[in-house]
């Protein structure tokens, strides 16, 4: 039994076509894209919320449940060893994918939110004290705001917020001004889910490290769109979710530099994360096990590894180029629409088009385009401070994935015309 080699054979098919990015044959890998919605072909443009799953991911998980499922790191029986190997192979797969130095730097969690909470709770409570500062940005998702507010309230530390400008870019001079020797950690998003802005993470890491601060990067939107190398970025922690990367929901990754993880106390207590327990005391396991209390999501990482194989066979650079083309095409096409205002016009932007149509509420847009088979997101995108900044209650967001086409963008634009027709 050589897992996941059984699936690598299907992966080799992708090798042949990766020379030319053939979006139509890629679409055939995603069973759900053949669905119809309200009698129309499904046009799925809500990829920043979550992405659809290729057959390779569904099959890898199905195969594991059928042939290699047991609890991990416990049994001496064959099935448990097989499950443990699949789970640990997935960890190594993730390590190589993001360029981490060691698989022990990869902690499996439920998702980006849990990864950030883990750092705020474990690293935060040991290293951040009253009078210390935490620096975030105005474009953060609630998941990179609230955990730091909780830590602030528990420790008496200060939470500082670096502002964004009218295009939705971080104001670097302000960021530099707010960064100081009291800053213990900088927590920022790599790619903004509400604006599409790509932050200059490498430069920010250099500035933060020069000031003695650690850096956590929320990479939930970045990892599906572009090549990420944590050692090249130089960050101390990097968090992302599987479900936005065409893998299953319920699993995510916290990358942490080993010496930092090794110095951190457990986040949750329980089975698996210990070496020895008596009623007087417990000795904790080394990372990453220390942070994986209880029976983990066993099959989730296997699905994530299959998703990573899938996107790497297509090529992250090819995916980025394809999505950039879609964004450019959509940005130009929507400019013709009366009353259109794009929220977020950063010079470096990834596959997200957030907008408002003058006089029409995003929820009405969402419902009407849904009738045309077009799935968009309407709301505050869990980034209420961004909405406040641009003085809108909500926006409508189209977000593009590796399987979207220009024809789908045409259908999206046609559906926006329909909105005007219905609501005048």
């Amino acid at each position, binding site marked *: 039994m050589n897992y996941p080699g059984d699936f690598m054979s299907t992966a080799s098919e992708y090798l042949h076509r990766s020379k030319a990015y053939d979006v139509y044959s890629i679409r055939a890998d995603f069973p759900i894209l053949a669905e119809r919605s*309200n*009698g129309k072909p499904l046009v799925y443009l809500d990829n920043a919320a979550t992405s659809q799953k290729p057959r390779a991911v569904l099959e890898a998980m199905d195969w594991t449940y059928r042939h290699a499922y047991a609890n991990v790191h416990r049994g001496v029986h064959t099935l448990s060893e097989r499950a443990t190997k699949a789970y640990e192979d997935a960890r190594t797969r993730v390590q190589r994918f993001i360029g981490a130095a060691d698989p022990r730097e990869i902690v499996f969690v439920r998702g980006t939110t849990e990864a950030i909470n883990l750092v705020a709770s474990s690293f935060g409570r040991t290293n951040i004290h009253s009078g210390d500062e935490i620096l975030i940005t105005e474009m953060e998702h609630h998941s990179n705001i609230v955990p730091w507010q909780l830590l602030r309230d528990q420790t008496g530390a200060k939470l500082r917020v670096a502002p964004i400008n009218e295009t939705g870019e971080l104001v670097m001079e302000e960021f530099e001004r707010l960064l100081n020797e009291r800053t213990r950690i900088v927590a920022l998003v790599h790619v903004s889910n509400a604006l599409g802005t790509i932050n200059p993470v490498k430069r920010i890491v250099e500035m933060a490290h020069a000031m003695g601060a650690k850096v956590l990067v929320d990479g939930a939107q970045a990892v599906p769109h572009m090549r990420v190398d944590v050692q090249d970025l130089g960050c101390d922690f990097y968090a992302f979710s599987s479900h936005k990367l065409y893998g299953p929901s319920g699993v995510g990754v916290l990358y942490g530099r080993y010496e930092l993880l090794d110095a951190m106390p457990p986040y949750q207590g329980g089975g698996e994360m210990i070496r020895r327990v008596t009623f007087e005391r417990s000795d904790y396991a080394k990372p990453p096990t220390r942070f994986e209390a209880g029976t983990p999501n066993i099959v989730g990482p296997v699905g994530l590894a299959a998703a990573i194989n899938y996107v790497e066979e297509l090529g992250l650079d090819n995916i980025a180029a394809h999505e950039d083309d879609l964004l450019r095409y959509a940005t130009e096409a929507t400019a013709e629409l009366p009353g259109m205002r794009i929220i977020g016009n950063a010079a470096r932007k990834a596959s997200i088009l957030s907008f408002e149509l003058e006089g*029409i*509420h*995003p*929820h*009405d847009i969402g*419902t*009407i385009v849904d*009738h045309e088979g077009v799935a968009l997101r*309407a*709301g*505050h995108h869990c980034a*209420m401070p961004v*909405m406040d900044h641009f003085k809108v*209650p*909500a926006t409508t967001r189209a977000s593009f994935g590796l399987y979207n086409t220009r024809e789908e963008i045409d259908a999206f634009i046609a559906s926006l015309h329909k909105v005007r027709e*219905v*609501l*005048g």
Partner: protein
Amino acid sequence: MSDLRALYQEVIAEHNKNPRNFRWMEDANRMAVGVNPLCGDKLTVYMKVDEQGIVRDVSFEGSGCAISVSSASIMTQMLKGKKVEEAERLFNAFHEAVTKDDPQSDLEALGKIAVLAGVRAYPSRVKCATLSWHTMHAALEGEEWVSTE
């Protein structure tokens, strides 16, 4: 497949563009703010109720989608001159019509707000249609803040 026109009828689009009784009321003696934290919609409902328990005036302010604005606009038209008990009865009847699997209230008893009964087919939009009604109910109950969550 439900027809989109059943939801966005012309009368709804028209009320959205020209909402009735869309104003602050200086001498209101009942008032409540309703919010839908999910979408950020926020409406304030003002009422003036006399000693006989008759709604003498009702108005609203705020921002929302076409469904919530038209529902509020139609509601203010319907409630003016009605007894408080009648306002509560309409609230219950409308709420049941759009939330119950097997609504007992007949559409005719709903009056003008029956145009919004089609929202039943759109579970994610029911809260938009009922926001102003919940807020009106809260104002009559003496609560000043109501949230759909």
